């Protein structure tokens, strides 16, 4: 047998072995037709892998695509018509570890209806999450992430008035874009260790209050120039970049605070790291 044949056999071996391991991987799609536009509560639980959530104009209450390792997890899709609530995602099997390589192959893609008022709860573990929630009719959003690299965006305004946007991230890099489009009264961001970047561009329709706490890491708040800003800072061993802000009493104010059409009140806390407030364009 010559060298080329040996190389060919070597190349074939992983394919033969891979055919066996590939059998563990399943793809699963589940959706439900939308028969009315009454408010719904949707909860999504997902361990590790890639996550993509966005809106759809199709007549669906939800549409979920999963790729998962059958040995480690099984799909969850429970709909309660009476409670008008849905639980979606993956349930991991106890006691089985996971390697990062396998997590990279796993994915969840979820589409949600734009015409139905939603209370949305998202719980992710070690994921790479891209959440484009613009154009949905969100009444409340609770996002809980573990070790996550997550981006939350509202490229177009939320169709409903949001009571609260609650974000809780563990060891993560978290970016929120166009937060003014969230149309929320209160945004609460809590972070353990990592970098949090909050961008308040978008269409301002109401004043906004933000409570943010990052224990260890850096938090950057990007605010449009025409929005009045009031910042209360509590820090232990952290820096505060307050360029363009003036101190009055116990808080820092932007110069246009008294004249601005819309106001952003920020209460920021950090233990180790830094807080920066930067001006941006809409």
């Amino acid at each position, binding site marked *: *047998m*010559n060298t*080329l*044949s040996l*190389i*060919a*056999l070597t*190349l*074939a*071996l992983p*394919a*033969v072995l891979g*055919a066996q391991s590939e*059998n563990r991987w*399943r*793809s*699963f*799609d*589940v*959706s*439900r*037709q939308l*028969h009315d536009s009454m408010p719904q509560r949707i909860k999504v639980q997902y361990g590790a892998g890639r996550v993509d959530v966005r809106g759809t104009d199709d007549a669906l209450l939800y549409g979920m695509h999963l790729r998962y390792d*059958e*040995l480690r997890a*099984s799909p969850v*899709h429970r*709909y309660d018509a009476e409670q008008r609530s849905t639980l979606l995602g993956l*349930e*991991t*099997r*106890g006691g089985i570890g996971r390697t990062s390589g396998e997590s990279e192959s796993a994915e969840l893609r979820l589409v949600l209806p734009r015409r139905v008022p939603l209370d949305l709860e998202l719980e992710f573990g070690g994921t790479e999450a891209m959440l484009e929630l613009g154009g949905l009719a969100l009444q409340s959003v609770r996002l809980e992430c573990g070790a996550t690299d997550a981006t939350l965006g509202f490229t177009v305004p939320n169709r409903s008035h949001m009571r609260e946007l609650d974000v809780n991230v563990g*060891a993560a890099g978290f970016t929120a874009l166009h937060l003014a489009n969230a149309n929320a009264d209160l945004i609460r961001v809590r972070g353990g*260790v*990592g*970098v949090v970047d909050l961008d308040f561009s978008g269409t301002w329709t109401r004043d906004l209050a933000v409570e943010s706490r990052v224990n*260890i*890491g*850096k938090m950057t708040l990007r605010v449009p120039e025409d929005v009045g800003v009031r910042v209360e800072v509590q820090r232990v*061993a952290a820096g505060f970049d307050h360029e363009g802000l003036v101190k009055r009493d116990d808080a820092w104010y932007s110069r246009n605070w008294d004249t601005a059409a819309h106001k952003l009140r920020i209460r920021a806390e950090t233990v*180790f*790291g*830094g807080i920066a407030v930067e001006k941006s364009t809409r």
Partner: protein
Amino acid sequence: MRPHLRALITLLAALLPSALWAQSDSTRELSRVLERLAKGEQIQGLPPADSVAPAGRVIPAGATVHGTVVARGPVDVSGTVEGSVVSLVGDVTIRSGGRVTGDAVAVAGRVVADGRVDGEMRTMSALPTLPQAIAPRADTRSALERTVAAVQVVAGSFGVLLVIAIGVLLFAGQNLAEVVETVERRFSRAFWVGLAAQLLLLPGVVVLCIALALTLIGILLIPFAVVAYAIAVAGLVTLGFLAVAQLIGGALWRGRDSSERRRAFGGLVVGVAIFFALWFVASLLVWAPLAATVVRAAAVAATWAAMTLGLGAAVLSRAGTHRRVASGSRPVELAAWQTPTPITGVVAARRPVAAAKEAR
């Protein structure tokens, strides 16, 4: 035949059996699923079947079918199904005006719905082969099977530790000897240091993370630092445990006529075997849970004591790199840097004599 053509044929020949096997395997699986559904059995991931078709099925407009329809092939619904529709290896098509009151499920196919589906629309690449329930299942193995499994686990662990022991003896024999000497000479202190080290393990990693986080850029290094910390601790514990095992084993197996390396190896094997003997007895008593628990508790206690003692000795001797700590004396090389050495006068008269004692 040209070499590259021969290589290509070899590659294809190697891949063909696995491809054919995978194909025939899924065909057999689907046949089994249909048979079980026809018998009225419940298949995970599928609703219970009321009618099973060996090929595709069409429900024309105006027709109503009661109960769940399962077909091996495409299902075309223009009428009404009062139940669910399942297609194995085919599409489920609900045409405009058609209705399914239950779920529409396609295995290795698609669901195309222009009509109404009251339930869920699901497509899956294959049927689930593992139980969906996450709850732990009861152990249904016989006592003999459980005993054999437990003995295998202990034997496997013993084998792994022996391999590690050989590696340590070959590549870090000096360090191991130093830790053994530290255990021997500073027994009590090593134990208390080991205990303190265990208590400080968690605060240590927290302090490390905070220190890295303070530098901001170091935040990125935290995961690596935690892993490195865990590896270092595991290494110290293993080295220490092996040292204690060698000390005990060496006391029982002296191997008078053997070389020093052989004696060290023999002592290590006997020592590790002594610690594993308790675990082995516990695994043999799996059929008697109370006795097994008592022996296992003794094994845990003995192993913990050895690990604590060994960890303390490894810390005291800095993983066996700090020579002469075992003897309690100050290393010569540490005193040697204190130059210039006073030769005459009052300073010379008061000069510490550690180095001189070492020389003697």
